[in-house]
């Protein structure tokens, strides 16, 4: 018997949940005052939160979970006995528009298993985005996961309609590819990223006639790596990320703690998803992108190349580099303020403005909603000097959580 739309929605959203990204921000500003449906406002909106704490911003579904590939970590791999289903392009369009009208979502995040071949699959996905944009005047957000090995022409067409394109590398090393995704070619994935970067660069140049930028993937490209399926260390993973940010100017690298999947392959560890490790990687990634840290600095003090699970990477760096503290909040440069554990970029900006008008003390920092307990050992301020605190041997003990018994599955 043919499955109902509801049954297929269940299968094809279940299959999509291993993609960490649900972001809908950083695209061009649009509205529908001149026609159509939908808007984008710069920062995306999380319309709901699932009990896993993750933001639900987009209708994140697969077009189909049939797949001719057999990637070990994937719930859709051809050798898995998971239930299969497929949407028609019209159904995806209908679901997107009806969900959007009820204000459940910001838009669509569409990906797919590979059916027949890469180009056939990609063509169907492009058709969905084209219909949404052209036929239905949809101005909401669209993220399309491109199919590995799809032709450049199709990807460029997709870029005309999508806000963001992504291609997941999933495995941090080429050796991991060989072991877990033998049908995929990391070289080709990198080539696709490179081509997309060039196309985005070209489009961002003003055209002569209109003096406007061409609308082409305004929210850029992103990717995802699975954490904990293979043996790659945090240093390796972060090194790969840094390379991707620099070479292909990716907007985001997502980290997805490998999570047990139904009917999982025997070549994979059966573990609780390493959520804390994932969290630390995000923090380190953040330090690299917004706080002026080099990857090498973040992982330098770690013998096994793994981030400290108990302390966040900034605090852990500060404890290893005590000689550089305390930092004077009334005099230090922005770069050094950013390295103080407990100061975010916004706090640092507020400090820089405020200190032009008065000498700042701890009470001032408190009013900027800084955790004084955290910053006190690392700063000097008006009538505050932690000289002795920073030398304490038990400084780490002040921050590290009490030891916990390891949780096993």
């Amino acid at each position, binding site marked *: 018997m043919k499955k109902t739309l509801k049954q297929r929605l269940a299968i094809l959203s279940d299959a999509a949940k291993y993609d960490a990204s649900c972001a809908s921000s950083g695209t061009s500003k649009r509205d529908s005052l001149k026609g159509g449906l939908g808007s984008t406002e710069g920062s995306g909106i999380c319309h709901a939160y699932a009990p896993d704490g993750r933001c639900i911003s987009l209708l994140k579904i697969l077009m189909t979970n049939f797949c001719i590939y057999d990637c070990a970590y994937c719930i859709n791999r051809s050798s898995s006995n998971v239930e299969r289903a497929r949407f028609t392009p019209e159904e995806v369009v209908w679901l997107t528009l009806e969900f959007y009208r009820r204000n459940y979502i910001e838009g669509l995040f569409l990906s797919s298993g590979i059916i027949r071949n890469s180009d056939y699959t990609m063509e169907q996905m492009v058709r969905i985005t084209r219909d949404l944009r052209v036929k239905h005047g949809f101005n909401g957000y669209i993220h399309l996961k491109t199919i590995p090995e799809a032709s450049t022409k199709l990807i460029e067409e997709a870029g005309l309609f999508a806000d963001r394109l992504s291609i997941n590398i999933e495995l941090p090393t080429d050796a991991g590819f060989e072991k877990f995704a033998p049908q995929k070619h990391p070289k080709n994935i990198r080539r696709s990223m490179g081509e997309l970067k060039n196309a985005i660069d070209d489009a961002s140049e003003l055209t002569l006639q209109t003096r406007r930028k061409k609308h082409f993937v305004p929210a850029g490209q992103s990717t995802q790596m699975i954490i904990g399926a293979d043996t790659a260390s945090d240093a390796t993973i972060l090194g790969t990320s840094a390379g991707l940010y620099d070479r292909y100017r990716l907007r985001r690298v997502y980290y997805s703690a490998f999570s047990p999947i139904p009917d999982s392959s025997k070549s994979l560890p059966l573990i609780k998803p390493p959520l804390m490790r994932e969290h630390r990687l995000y923090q380190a990634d953040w330090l690299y992108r917004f706080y002026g840290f080099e990857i090498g600095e973040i992982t330098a003090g770690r013998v096994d190349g793994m981030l400290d699970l108990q302390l966040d990477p900034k605090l852990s760096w500060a404890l290893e580099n005590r000689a550089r503290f305390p930092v004077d909040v009334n005099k230090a440069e922005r770069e050094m303020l950013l390295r103080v554990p407990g100061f975010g970029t916004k706090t640092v900006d507020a400090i820089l403005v*405020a200190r032009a008008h008065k000498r700042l003390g701890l009470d001032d920092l408190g009013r900027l909603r800084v955790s004084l307990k955290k910053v006190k050992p690392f700063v000097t301020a008006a009538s505050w000097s932690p000289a002795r605190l920073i030398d304490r041997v038990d400084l780490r003990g002040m921050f590290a959580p009490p030891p916990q018994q390891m949780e096993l599955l």
Partner: protein
Amino acid sequence: MHISRSLTVPQAFLDLAQAMICHSDPARFALAYRILWRLQGERHLLDIPTDPDVARARKMEKSVRRDYHKMTAFVRFKEVPQDGPRRAFVAWFEPDHHIVARTAPFFQRRFTDMDWVIATPMGRSAWDGEALRCDDAPADKPDLSDDTDELWRTYFVNIFNPARLKVKMMQTEMPKKYWKNLPEAEMIPGLINGAEQRVREMADRLASDTAPRFNTRLHAKTQAKTHAKIHESVQSRS
């Protein structure tokens, strides 16, 4: 109260005051007025985020911003029957602050091609394709239902990953006070309670030894292909 005609205020104050007056705290006017007064002597007052008055005002502003944001996120439209070419939707929402008029342009920009009404205990906003209307008379909660909510619940249930349960995180971002007006929220307790069991089942059910039929066929196909290729190359060499 007498204010001299030469009173000037920075744009930053206007933005701040506009947010502050939406706040539900009755003290908001007195605070806004005091800041306005102090600005006459201390022109850079707003640049000092550590000033107690400014810090309090910013806190109010932040709270209004958050409420605005949550309203744009958690309003749920339900379709109602209507004659004519435009579709019509109604929503019920309970904001903390007086933000109905402040959020109305957002919904207008986004849902331009449909008629809608958002009713709240603090007033209503409505759009009919021509005029955006807002008032602040408390509205009654309408009795609404929409079949598409069932599909949305299906999505919500299935996009959740039971192996990553983080209830506290969900609740900071989607506090319980919103749940009663969110069609998906009724599924949450069941998802939380069933999560552990689901993960355990996944662990118990190891990978099956038999692959699905189409996988076997796929393998046969690729093998045939490589066979044919080898065959070809052998033949061409001979």
